[in-house]
């Protein structure tokens, strides 16, 4: 589910802005670290869960306004360089502010311990994350499918020129899309923190997976990203049961396969 969340955010950004956002993993990490700081400040997990992703969204706004905005016409290589540079800066800032040591963050007291599901014992917090992520995905999807602004955004993915010809401020659209994508990354990070613990490197792996999800789902295909995220999560678990070491590598194999055979993604129509 987390993969779906990350994939959705990245798909939004790559779809609407057509930019490979290499800083997506770093945004994920910032979300997690902001959560920890918030909890340290307020002592309340739930407040932090709200504030942290908002913080990342604001960061996204700033990034888009200050930098990404100028890069729409530039080639992918420069966009990559820029977002990668951003990722480096964010990563190092995390180390400067929070130190290089891994941090542990416990789930809120309400969600500790596990649930006996009969066939397996499953941690409560993970169930919560699944539900929460699912909810967010649903909400995002509803926003995109059912609201007017969401429709504009989807149109922006399909045909930017048309949208701006219709008189809609395409730049504002991009900014919102980026901020929304950042928000999703941030909340994914915040949710993950109690599961995986925090370390400055935490964004790097997530970045790879996010790109795989996007590739699998089809660039800009938001529903596809969701489906792909779920699929990858399941596939990883299945492979892990037989060949644990390969569970990470297998998703790249799948990614390569899909890109070759069906680049529009499993659900794509393009």
């Amino acid at each position, binding site marked *: 589910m987390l993969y779906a969340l990350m994939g959705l955010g990245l798909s939004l950004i790559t779809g609407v802005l057509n930019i490979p956002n290499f800083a997506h993993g770093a945004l994920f990490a910032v979300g997690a670290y902001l959560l920890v700081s918030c909890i340290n400040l307020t002592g309340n997990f739930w407040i932090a869960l709200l504030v942290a992703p908002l913080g990342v969204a604001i960061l996204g706004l700033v990034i888009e306004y200050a930098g990404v905005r100028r890069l729409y016409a530039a080639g992918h290589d420069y966009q990559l360089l820029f977002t990668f540079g951003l990722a480096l800066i964010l990563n190092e800032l995390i180390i400067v502010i929070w130190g290089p040591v891994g941090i542990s963050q416990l789930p809120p007291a309400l969600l500790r311990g596990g649930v006996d599901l009969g066939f397996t014992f499953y941690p409560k917090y993970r169930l919560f994350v699944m539900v929460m992520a699912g909810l967010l995905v649903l909400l995002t999807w509803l926003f995109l499918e059912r609201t007017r602004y969401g429709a504009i955004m989807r149109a922006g993915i399909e045909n930017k020129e048309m949208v701006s010809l219709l008189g809609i401020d395409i730049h504002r659209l991009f900014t919102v899309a980026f901020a929304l994508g950042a928000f999703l990354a941030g909340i994914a990070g915040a949710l993950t923190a109690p599961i995986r613990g925090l370390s400055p490197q935490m964004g790097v792996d997530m970045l790879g997976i996010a790109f795989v999800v996007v590739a699998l789902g089809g660039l800009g295909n938001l529903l596809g990203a969701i489906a792909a995220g779920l699929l990858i999560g399941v596939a990883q678990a299945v492979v892990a*049961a037989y060949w*644990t070491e390969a569970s990470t590598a297998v998703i790249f194999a799948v990614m390569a396969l899909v890109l070759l055979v069906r680049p529009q993604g499993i659900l794509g129509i393009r």
Partner: protein
Amino acid sequence: MKRRAILKAGAATAALGFPAIIRAQQKEVVILGLWDQTGAFADVGPLNDRGMRMALEERDMKILGRPVKYVTRDGATQAGTSTRRAEEAIDGEGARFMIGPWSSGVALAVSEVAKRKKVLHLFSGGTEDISGSRCHRYSFQWAASPYTAAKTVVDNFMKANPKAKRWHLLVADYAFGWSVEKYIKEVGKAHGLEFVGADRHPLGEREFSNYVQKAAANRPDVVAMINFGGDAVAGAREIFNFGLTPKVPLIMSWSSGVEELIQLAPEIRENMWVGTNFYYTADTPVAKEFVKNYRAKFKTPPGYAPSASYSMTRLMLAGFDKAKSVEVEAVIKALEGIEVNDLLGRMRVDGATHQTLRPYFFLRCKPKKAMKEELDLADVIATGDTPLPKEYAACKDIGGF
């Protein structure tokens, strides 16, 4: 602070270029600490640095009347980067004595550099190859032999839990993991243990849910982890989250002690058994003094990382003292067979393999109600120092200079 950075920048620019002859003063003894500031062990590097610095400062940065220049390099927990930077420090700064790095796999590569450049190299880690199949005259292993560690852990655990025959292993997938795994299985044979599973995970892994579920499916009596630092913490946490522990005891076979344990909540530590190269309640005069000073400076007691670098530095300095010389060959000869009563108690360096023979600690973590204070994490229930039996010794000839 700023001025120092500028000076350092200037020094760095100079360091990149001018040959050692111009810069290293003739009398200086240059000692290199290869400690990671980035990469998988980025959090350990600073700790190592602390211990080494403390040991050197105890001597006022002087040895045998000469000033000591302590330089550090970030190996980035990568073999390529570490060997490059080590060579640069040796050629550029004139370092003749090297301690580190932390990762056993990387250390094997660095050990090659030590051999090629003929510099003294001390290392603490879980691979047996440095005092085994890859042994040579210039490298010394401070950590207990993985055999000693495995024997201490398995023997003492079985004494307390004689019925726990089904073991599931979770192993870090590199040199250190492989060595310890091998010996746990060896020693386990004598206890009639059945290894129902042994999964390997990459160094730096944080997503353990799949591994844990697989472990649970095997219905083990014990889960033994052979990993370290962040990996161990993440693993222990997941094993607890999925309800495997505390029903099933969890062994951390090669832990850093305090540094890992404080990251885990007391509930997680219940029924945890820990093997470590050093625990801060060790009852030796040197340890007591060291722990006191470390706590005064850094608030928390020292774990394996700073203690290892501290002890290795002291061992090296003892070598200087014994040799009454700062020539690499003389110090090496002095270290071979040296016996000290130091941080861990009685420690001896085997001249034939360059392996340090010393106690390995086995602890049992305390449940929350038994903890007298926040840092009263565990009791040392045993130490073991059985050296590697001759038939396993892979170091047939330590070689010459």
